[in-house]
């Protein structure tokens, strides 16, 4: 597999959210609007990049038995960095994403990539994998967020282009489940043909 394929696999073929169905909690909770979804995606991408890079650098030094705990500490450190940075520079978005920023620690995508990919590959490969997976996740969150914002309030990026109220349920909790369900079903359908 060449580096380009390695980078692009996260977008469609192995999209963490739409194909592997990982990282559901932030995907459902933070996609009430396109901008929130993208913000969450970018925060996750940053953590994924950092943890993949560091894990691939130190994986040969870490004894096998303490592998997972040390990966978790690395991930938690990057999450703390993101948490503090967002609190300082984008307080409004930070308020909205709330508890889901510290919860990036337990996002299965991040630990999954560290354990299954970064620890077995060299720096460049792991970095590109992290970037591709992160952007793929961001893209999926953006699509879901945009869909929910358009259907729920007739707006996109806070710009209202449909008059009237929209279908309120898509902004609320049940709409998240239903929208993601149909999005994954749609992707399944194109993949099979």
């Amino acid at each position, binding site marked *: 597999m060449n580096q380009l394929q390695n980078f692009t696999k996260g977008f469609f073929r192995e999209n963490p959210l739409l194909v592997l*169905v*990982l990282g*559901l*909690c*932030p995907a*459902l*909770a933070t996609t009430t609007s396109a901008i929130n979804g993208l913000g969450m995606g970018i925060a996750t991408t940053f953590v994924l990049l950092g943890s993949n890079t560091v894990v691939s650098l130190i994986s040969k030094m870490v004894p096998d038995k303490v592998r*997972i*705990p040390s990966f*978790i*500490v690395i991930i*938690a*450190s990057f*999450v*703390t960095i993101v*948490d*503090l940075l967002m609190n300082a520079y984008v307080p409004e978005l930070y308020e909205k994403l709330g*508890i889901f920023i*510290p*919860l990036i*620690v*337990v*996002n*299965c995508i991040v*630990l999954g990539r560290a354990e299954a990919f970064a620890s077995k590959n060299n720096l460049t490969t792991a970095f590109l994998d992290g970037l591709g997976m992160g952007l793929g996740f961001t893209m999926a969150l953006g699509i879901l967020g945009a869909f929910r914002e358009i259907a729920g309030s007739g707006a996109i990026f806070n710009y209202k282009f449909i008059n009237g109220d929209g279908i309120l*349920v898509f902004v*609320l*909790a*049940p*709409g*998240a*489940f*239903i929208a*993601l*369900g*149909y999005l*994954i*079903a*749609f992707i*399944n*359908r194109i993949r*099979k043909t």
Partner: protein
Amino acid sequence: MEYIIIIISAVLVNNIVLAQFLGVCPFMGVSNKVSTAVGMSGAVTFVMVLAAIVTYLIYTLILEKLGIVFMQTITYILIIASLVQMVEIVLKKISQPLYQALGIFLPLITTNCAVLGVAILVIKKEFNLIEGVVYSAATALGFGLALIILAGIREQLELADIPKGVKGAPVALIVAGILALAFMGFTGIV
């Protein structure tokens, strides 16, 4: 009375999975059969209450005293990971049947965001220790309730004729959405 409000709010109104989107991964992952769903709920309840107590004490007695509250995320995830390991070892020694029933779910719980989420929420909502325990137990109960209901529905879905693309994760998500819609009916009772 105060505790009853916390319980009703955590189980029905602000259900952890269906309204707050915490713990959706195990909610989707282990809801194929009712029996595994029951086992998972038991294990989650156990770990969630224990984790809430330990993290609360560590937060108030150590992190706050030393003024290093920003270490919360790292500390909590390490506490939860080691707690899960410890529970596994203790269960194996003292109760073989309980270990058989819950054992396989325990490693999965470390990455259950509901456990870490509740530990953070207890601090965020400024509960005291007893309120924290009641809240975490009620939240775990809500998680179990949602999980077992979904498992029951999914067992029936096995027999239904579902279009190919929707099979598996999509249909589970859509069912969960309808379930969330039903739970929205509880809004406003507290």
